[in-house]
């Protein structure tokens, strides 16, 4: 864990810097697609709030491990690395610290894909399913004609 104390408010500054650098590498923004980077302010805030609920210590430990990995393998600070190298180091942790990799990956996609801008880029309204719901076409039940034509398939007793 980082030397700096974790407070009940969430990750310390060093962890926040590392996490921001990692998120911008995992989910690069793309103006053409209209999607923000993973360290966009709203996404970042949501991710930190989610981590704070149940995984703060584990994520902090993992981020510390990520920084050490950068120093040991590349003699560089993690946030000074290029995006592809940051992703490579994170992928290394899939096998060495699966809990961190899995939890951070899960939290990241949860928060990213419920972000207003991301949902709008996917053609979705940024809202919960209820109460408006969604439209689904009824479909053409004439597709059943060959099934009907074949007749009974249940087994007599």
């Amino acid at each position, binding site marked *: 864990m980082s030397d700096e104390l974790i407070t009940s408010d969430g990750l310390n500054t060093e962890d926040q810097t590392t996490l921001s650098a990692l998120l911008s*590498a*995992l*989910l*690069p923004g*793309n103006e053409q*697609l209209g*999607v923000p980077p993973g360290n966009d302010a709203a996404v970042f805030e949501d991710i930190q709030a*989610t981590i704070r609920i149940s995984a703060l210590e584990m994520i902090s430990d993992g981020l510390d491990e990520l920084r050490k990995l950068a120093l040991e393998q590349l003699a560089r600070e993690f946030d000074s690395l290029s*995006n*592809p190298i*940051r*992703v490579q180091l*994170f*992928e290394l942790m899939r096998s060495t610290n699966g809990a961190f990799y*899995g939890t951070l*990956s*899960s939290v990241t*996609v*949860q928060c*990213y*894909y*419920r972000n207003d801008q*991301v*949902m709008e880029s*996917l053609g*979705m309204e*940024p*809202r*919960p*399913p*209820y*109460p*408006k*719901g*969604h*439209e*689904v*076409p*009824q*479909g*053409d*039940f004439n*597709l*059943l004609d*060959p*099934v*009907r034509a*074949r*007749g*009974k*398939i*249940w*087994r*007599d*007793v």
Partner: protein
Amino acid sequence: MSSDPVDVLIIGAGASGAAAAWSLADTKMRIVCLEQGEWMNPSEYPSTGRDWESRHSGDFSISPNRRGRITDYPVNDSNSPIHVANFNAVGGSTILYNGHFPRFHPSDFRVKTLDGVGDDWPIDYQTLEPYYDESDRLTGVAGLAGDPAYPPKQEFLPPVPLGLSGAKLASGFNKLGWHWWPSDAAVATVPHDGRDKCINLSACTLGCAQGAKASTDITFWPHAIRAGVELRTRCRVREITVNEDDMATGVVYFDEDGKEQFQAAEVVMVACNGVGTPRVLLNSKSKRFPDGIANRSGLVGKNLMFHPYASIYGTFDEPLDGYRGPGVCIWSQEFYETDLNRGHVRGFTYECNRGRGPVSTAMTGVFRNHIPWGEGHHEAYLDMHNRMSGMVSICEDLPEESNTVTLDENLKDSNGIPAPKVDYTLSENSLNMLKFSVDRATEVLEAAGAKDIMTESPIGAGGWHLMGTARMGTDPDRSVVNEWGRSHDVKNLFIVDGSLFVTSAGVNPTRTIQALALYVADSMKQRLANLFD
């Protein structure tokens, strides 16, 4: 610890307890139901919030161990490749089920006679048919008449929409000449019995905020309560007590404050599902029943059946339903009946689901290496968003005495009651059936134009269906209850849930559980004058 006896005490307010309570209410007997869970508040269901998909892994997880609500009890299922799924509340696991609502087939009640495996049921399809019809009326079942995989059934509510996903998958079945049909669904597609119609929230397995999906807290229970049944929540039963005459005298339970209480009863009815029911019975030890009440056969907790499930999904070039629609779509029973050339006995149903929400799509893609982190992430995601669809195969599980629910020696719930321990092994027949189902589903998806087929077999988290652990039968040495649900050993003790199942069929059990509960309750009503003879 004392109280005035009630006429009927029901343990559990899920699918079976609700149906039995409703049926018995017209006798005007004093009926009390004890439920360890609470009433759910639909305005708090996940689909009312932006984080709806995330709550699948939190307070609305199907795993009681993961969910860990105060109303849950832990389950030690570490010695099983399939893990228990349930929900503890008024409505039980119908709160979280998808609403797939098939009936058993006539052949499912004659497995031994037809295929030489398992056992025959002591009742048949015709016996249950009027109770299926009665349950269907209360539930509000959507479907399309004329399915050639079934005998004719009564009229339905309009079917759930095919949607883009259903039509796409149907094209695959049609190319192969295989059966498919719009699934029977416990979903109100038009307003029904005070419930509003489905608005395609796509969150059926997180509780239906619209109230269109038929969970028994909004189907049977309002009617039962209006008819005089008393439902007490946050009451967890520890044991059923018995006297020297082998008659149940009542139950010991813990109330919301953890205070031990006793409720005397003339009749006790257990409705706690295929894991909860043997847990209560086995924990009810006495001088008369040192191995647990109603267990002189030694079969309480044995013959546990899940349905081994496989998941087979693919991605398509064109947009499908994705995050829209009820989960229930179409089914196929092409491989339902036995054909030994397939390498297994008995069969399975394919249940096609529409698609996935945006978060679930990303999770699947990232963890299955279909979507990379970093460069190429967004493009790969767009290839999957609203383009995933597929099916699960729900395979018949055969009864084996080595698959058991017992009491854990160490693990206990918050009231100190021993937790259930599950020991379960997949049979060679199940493994063969799973493989066959994955191979054939892959053919369907490819025929429909899918690429990048993703499979999971068995679905480890998919222990939704808990059956067989207090089976019915006419022989007291080979069954726990008789052919109308009464314990062979304790003549005022009845069981009404999936524990009764002799075999599991290859379909979801809830419609049959409700029909069985209505059948047992009706059998009691017809014998009230000599119920204990």
